[in-house]
């Protein structure tokens, strides 16, 4: 059994296994702390583990394409177990009808705002509450811009920077995908055989997104935590784990900010849709395991509400709020020490999360989309044509990969 995260996690899991898993199920577990990069050669030579915890979202399907992970949906109690998680968390692990990982962490974006500053300068009403943000749309964002910029303040929309691009895979930008999903669009066709980025909706959304940077002069690269703390960026979108960062890094502003659902899009029926994508971490069972049933027992135990809560509490016990655990288990998240207002908001946004599917070749999607963005922002070319062209390239790559695996 391998865990790829860190020393603290391994210590806690080890203890939990000794205290509750092994005594109850009578299964011995050897837990080792090994980075995910070793999984590949180890699996090939047969030295790999039965179970690997802490894998990124692109791994399960990549391994599934190459027959290296076990399809969890073959287990009889699969449906019961998976009901603890949101479908959006499971989606990235689906491939050709099977499910190849169990969600461990599920992280989605929310809107952070400096209540003190925004109310003081009057961009939001003094009595703004949850209801206000429920009705808050991207049009409202645009309306807010002149006032903010007049005071040299900004609204933060995230874009990956160089430091984050060392893993070789860039995910599709989360703001773009949010906008797209809120318009009712999708990244890929139902069967994952090609992208839908050449569709009208996708192209229009791309224009809308790049306009923020070209027309409205949004900052492309910024360290949000720092600027939120100083107040230069009193409002912005980030993964909800930014909460952890702010708690340790900016304790002096602790009462003055909140987070809420991200801006939405007005739908035909008058409601506001706040859909957003998410990222996550999962646990897989390797196909070469000879103890698949036992491994499944472990997965069930590990993913269970009780274990996840214990784990989250222990992490927080050691490192404080900096380590608040973004568990994928819905029941568990509710039991972690979130203030009740925050939990309500999280659950609300969580309902509106829609997963990003992983298809063969999808590693290329985020990359070309980033290229498209850079081209538009650096040289000012037409966003519609640019995205159209890159979508072609993405489709080519996907087709190649599908051919490679006999799916075409």
């Amino acid at each position, binding site marked *: 059994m391998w865990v790829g995260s860190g020393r603290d996690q391994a210590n806690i899991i080890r203890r939990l296994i000794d205290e509750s898993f092994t005594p109850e199920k009578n299964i011995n577990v050897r837990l080792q702390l090994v980075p995910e990069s070793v999984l590949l050669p180890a699996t090939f030579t047969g030295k790999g583990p039965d179970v690997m915890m802490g894998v990124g979202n692109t791994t399960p399907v990549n391994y599934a394409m190459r027959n290296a992970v076990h399809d969890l949906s073959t287990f009889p109690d699969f449906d019961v177990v998976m009901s603890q998680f949101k479908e959006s968390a499971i989606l990235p692990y689906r491939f050709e009808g099977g499910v190849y990982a169990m969600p461990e962490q599920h992280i989605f974006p929310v809107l952070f705002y400096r209540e003190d500053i925004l109310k003081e300068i009057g961009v939001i009403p003094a009595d703004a509450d949850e209801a206000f943000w429920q009705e808050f749309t991207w049009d409202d964002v645009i309306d807010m811009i002149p006032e903010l910029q007049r005071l040299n303040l900004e609204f933060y929309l995230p874009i990956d920077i160089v430091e984050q*691009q060392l893993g*070789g895979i860039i995910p599709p930008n989360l703001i773009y995908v949010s906008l797209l999903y809120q318009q009712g669009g999708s990244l890929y066709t139902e069967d994952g055989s090609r992208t839908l980025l050449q569709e009208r909706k996708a192209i229009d959304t791309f224009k809308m997104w790049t306009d923020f940077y070209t027309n409205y*002069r949004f900052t492309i*690269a910024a360290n949000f935590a720092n600027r939120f703390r100083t107040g230069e960026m009193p409002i912005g979108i980030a993964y909800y784990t930014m909460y952890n960062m702010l708690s340790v890094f900016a304790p002096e502003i602790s009462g003055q900010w909140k987070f809420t659902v991200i801006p939405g899009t007005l739908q035909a029926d008058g409601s506001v849709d706040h859909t957003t994508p998410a990222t996550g971490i999962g646990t897989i069972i390797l196909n070469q395991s000879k103890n698949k049933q036992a491994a499944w027992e472990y997965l069930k135990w590990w993913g269970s509400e009780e274990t996840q809560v214990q784990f989250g509490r222990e992490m927080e016990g050691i490192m404080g709020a900096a380590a608040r655990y973004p568990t994928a288990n819905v029941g568990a998240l509710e039991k972690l020490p979130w203030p009740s207002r925050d939990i309500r908001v999280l659950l609300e946004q969580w309902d509106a999360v829609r997963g990003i599917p992983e298809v063969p070749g999808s*590693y290329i999607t985020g990359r070309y989309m980033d290229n498209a963005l*850079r081209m538009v922002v*650096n040289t000012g070319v037409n966003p519609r044509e640019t995205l159209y062209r890159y979508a072609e390239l993405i489709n080519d790559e996907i087709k190649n990969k599908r051919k490679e695996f006999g799916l075409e």
Partner: protein
Amino acid sequence: MQLSHDKPSREQKRLARKIEFHKNKELYVLMFPYFSLFFVFTVLPVAVSLVLAFTYFNVLEMPTWAGWENYRKLFFEDDVFMVAIKNTVLFAVVTGPIGYFAAFLFAWFVNELKPKIRAVMTLIFYAPSISGGAYIIWRLLFSGDMYGYLNAFLINLGITTEPIQWLQNPTYIPIIIILVQLWMSLGVSFLAFVAGLQSVDRTLYEAAAVDGIKNRWQELWFITLPSMKPQLMFSAVIQITSSLAISEVAMQVAGFPSVENAGHTIVTHLIYHGSIAFELGYASAIATLLFFVMLGSNLLVQKMLRRVGT
């Protein structure tokens, strides 16, 4: 060992060969432990990779034979590879020779300093390889953030009003990579040159002064460089190898993958196929190709270096 003055008889030849082997047997024994390990851990993997270049191998399933397919795709279908070659050649041609000469120049200068200062300077040059955090500085310098050093500088002076996305702009990325690579490449070559310069016999200089060598350029060409030929060769090999294999700098500075592949080099292409795209057979083919190119350039440069001092 008896040497006769007549032409050696067959008996004597055989004896000589036996003694030769016997004498060499000890040498072989001395070398055996090291080389057997070297063979197992360095040569063997290379040999395996050379074979893998002819397979399709996604590291999760057994390799399947693919013949020349990898090479065919590489040469005729891989546009990104062409970009990688173009970038690598650009980076290598600029940073290779310049880096080599700069390392020598600095080593020469440092060599003239008093020993204490020399030790300090050597530490300073060696420091980045221990602390390993050098790229942070460069990324801060060229950060697209308004507070990145260069951007802040330009904005404060009023030269620009918006921060420039240096590392995300294909126009600037190549130049920045070259700059950083030049700076980083001083490391090993510099130390080798310093050691080499130190070991040149001082008496040679004195003799040369007597013989009429007047200025320091003559001294350099006729005395210093020839005495340092081994170091020059060694550093040249290192330089060529690392220039053609530029990847670390490119990845750390421009990201991996880089925007529009502006920082894509042969080795990053290889890494991409080897680890992200699960195509180790293809990556091995790229590595083999690179290997032969390095071989070729090394032989070329060695030919040139043989003429130093003449």
